């Protein structure tokens, strides 16, 4: 075969990207496909974002499609709502999830309720991208996981990808969705699938099967979980970074876990949860966010309500502690292998 010819489809399918590259590609594709798509945020324009997620996009699509904004999350979300009312499809970036709070009123009272309060007259088809989670020595203002604040809000969808493949497909789905979507990107796994063993070398994405990212446009649907691995002993419900940590711990312990990557928290794939827990009879919920009123509480309640008569042990929750994310003690906070291992032992002891 001549080298001039395009590589066959199988070869294309072997293309490997990290999560940043996958997100950048999703934005690139949507900017090209849909003139209504606008990308904006602090440092996202000329510079390409502090995590490089928007690198090269301003040069390619121009300053009125991809641009920097003032340091005002309230303003960023507020103008995005107005742009949505005009008919655009804005994709604002909030530089860190920890910075999103000044924009909460615009998200909760405005974007989330606009369709409802106007009886469909106006919609807010925004996708708010924001890096979240810790494990990068970000201290308490660059490490938080505030997803439960958003899953609690009627009218918002909340999405958390765990792999480059899903990050691209989910982001395209989120941008095309006509409801406001909070798209939290687990920044600890931007460059590699972190195992939770922080004292061991970090693997890059290129050795992980889900770093194979097809070229071009494709979607991973919102509201559909992914079975990471099948198993019989118990079910793990996780999302984002914790999918990889749970997977590594289960492998290290040699337990036969079925791991679900939820991918979308609202709307949740309740059928996938039910099917798995009814099969295994045991359920471990893992998230990095603080424990009290965390999304794990909702998952635990749903599992109890839907699967109670299949349960052989109480549902276990492994989470971050109910403290701010401490800088020097971040690994003491992080729900790592020891905490997860202990919960697995407890879950399986009877």
């Amino acid at each position: 075969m001549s080298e001039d010819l395009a590589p066959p489809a199988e070869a294309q399918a072997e293309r490997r990207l990290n999560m940043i590259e996958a997100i950048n590609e999703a934005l690139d594709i949507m900017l090209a496909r849909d003139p209504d798509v606008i990308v904006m945020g602090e440092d996202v324009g000329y510079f390409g974002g502090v995590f490089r997620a928007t690198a090269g996009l301003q040069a390619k699509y121009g300053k009125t499609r991809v641009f920097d904004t003032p340091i005002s999350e309230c303003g960023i979300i507020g103008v995005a709502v107005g742009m949505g009312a005009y008919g655009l499809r804005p994709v604002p970036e909030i530089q860190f999830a920890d910075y999103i709070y000044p924009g909460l009123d615009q998200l909760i009272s405005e974007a989330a309720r606009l369709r409802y309060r106007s009886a469909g007259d106006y919609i807010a088809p925004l996708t708010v991208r924001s890096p979240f989670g810790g494990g990068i020595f970000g201290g308490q203002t660059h490490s938080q996981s505030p997803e439960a604040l958003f899953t609690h809000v009627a009218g918002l969808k909340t999405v958390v990808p765990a792999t480059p493949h899903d990050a691209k497909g989910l982001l395209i789905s989120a941008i095309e969705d006509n409801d406001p979507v909070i798209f939290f990107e687990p920044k600890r796994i931007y460059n590699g699938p972190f195992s939770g063993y922080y004292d061991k070398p970090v693997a890059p994405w290129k050795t992980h099967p889900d770093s194979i990212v097809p070229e071009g446009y494709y979607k991973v649907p919102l509201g559909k979980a992914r079975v990471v691995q099948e198993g019989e002993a118990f079910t793990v419900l996780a999302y984002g970074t914790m999918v990889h940590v749970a997977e590594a711990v289960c492998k290290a312990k040699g337990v036969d876990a079925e791991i679900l990557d939820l991918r979308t928290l609202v709307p949740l794939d309740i059928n996938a949860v039910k099917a798995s827990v009814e099969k295994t009879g045991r359920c471990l919920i893992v998230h990095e966010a603080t424990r009290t009123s965390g999304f794990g509480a909702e998952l635990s309640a749903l599992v109890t309500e839907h699967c109670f008569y299949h349960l052989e042990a109480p549902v276990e929750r492994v989470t971050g502690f109910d403290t701010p994310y401490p800088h020097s003690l971040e690994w003491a906070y992080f729900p790592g292998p020891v905490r997860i291992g202990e919960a697995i032992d407890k879950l399986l002891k009877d």
Partner: protein
Amino acid sequence: MAGPAKPADTNRPALALHVPEPKCRPGDKPDFSHIDIGTAGAQPRPDESVHPAQIQDLAFSLIRVLGEDNQAHGPWNPRLDPQTLRTMLGHMAMVRAFDERMFRGQRQGKTSFYMKCTGEEATSIAPAMALASDDMVFPSYRQQGILIARGYPLIDMINQIYSNKADKLKGRQLPIMYSSREHSFFSISGNLATQCPQAVGWAMASAIRGDSRIAASWVGEGSTAEGDFHSACTFAAVYNAPVILNVINNQWAISSFSGFAGAERTTFAARGLGYGIAALRVDGNDALACYAAAEWAANRARANHGPTLIEYFTYRAEGHSTSDDPSAYRSAQEREEWPLGDPVARLKKHLIAIGEWDEARHAAMDLACAETVKAATKEAEKNGILGHGLHHPFHTMFEDVYEELPWHLQEQAEQAIRERIAKFGTERPFG
């Protein structure tokens, strides 16, 4: 070289906190001596392309057109033809008649809540007439005048106020929180000042698209304290957005006088100066001045010269809402003695002064407005009043939360229907 830290002085005076207090309270004689209303016609009218720094004085004076002699004066006179003036007066009279009847309807138990705009009619109607009908407006809750000026049917307003089965918003919103995309009128929020950055965003989108439509928002002086207002100013200035940021300074935010939003220190128009936004301060009870200022700002925005902040200096002649009793916190005489008078009376006197109107026609117009509102009310009542069962079908409660009904809302909708049947024996007890 760093020296030793400055030692604490033990003789420093005690600090004192200033808590603003209005000049008069119930029973007091109003004192408006601190308000300089200037002279009608005295303010210069710069070209719309002017740099904001060159017109700083206009943020502190009052642009006025209608003088004590009821004639129009000076360069801000918009020179509207008599028919347009009569149309403007007609809209203002209609809003006043509408407010009267809806307020009464709330007192009669036909709805839960109402908000009048008495005394402020010019601040929504005149700008609405100065804008093009397809310019997008992001109102606060006291701009019913815009809908009237844009020809939105009274019966649709009343259906919304009654939350009845014909309410276009399906009974989901507090009365008066209208929405009409068809009339380029954004959905009103009960959360204050959120509409300001949204208007800026809409204007930015229009500019991104190379459209020719502009946006305008309205906010009360009290709500300018919200961060959203300042975000809006920042974004409007940064992107030179084709937007008009209107501040309705009606002196009162429920019971808090404008001092709690900073009025003791500077004007609200002056807020624009720090951002580099052109700022105008206008007699809000002078419909011609309101029109002229809005027209100037619209011309400026449409020519890509950027945003304008307009402070309409006016007076909230009635309570904040049907849930408010202003006699508990301010002098009842303020309304009568307000130095800028009443906007309807002033426009009426002007039309009479130029020989284009008379008392008899005015009385006939008021009567016709009252009759029109009465007829619309009777018609709307056929669709039900609040709490009498003639609301939207039950299942609509779960619609429009998302574009599609997710499983958890489907489950909750089924539960709600079970509750209905348990209580009434049928899902639709009112047919």
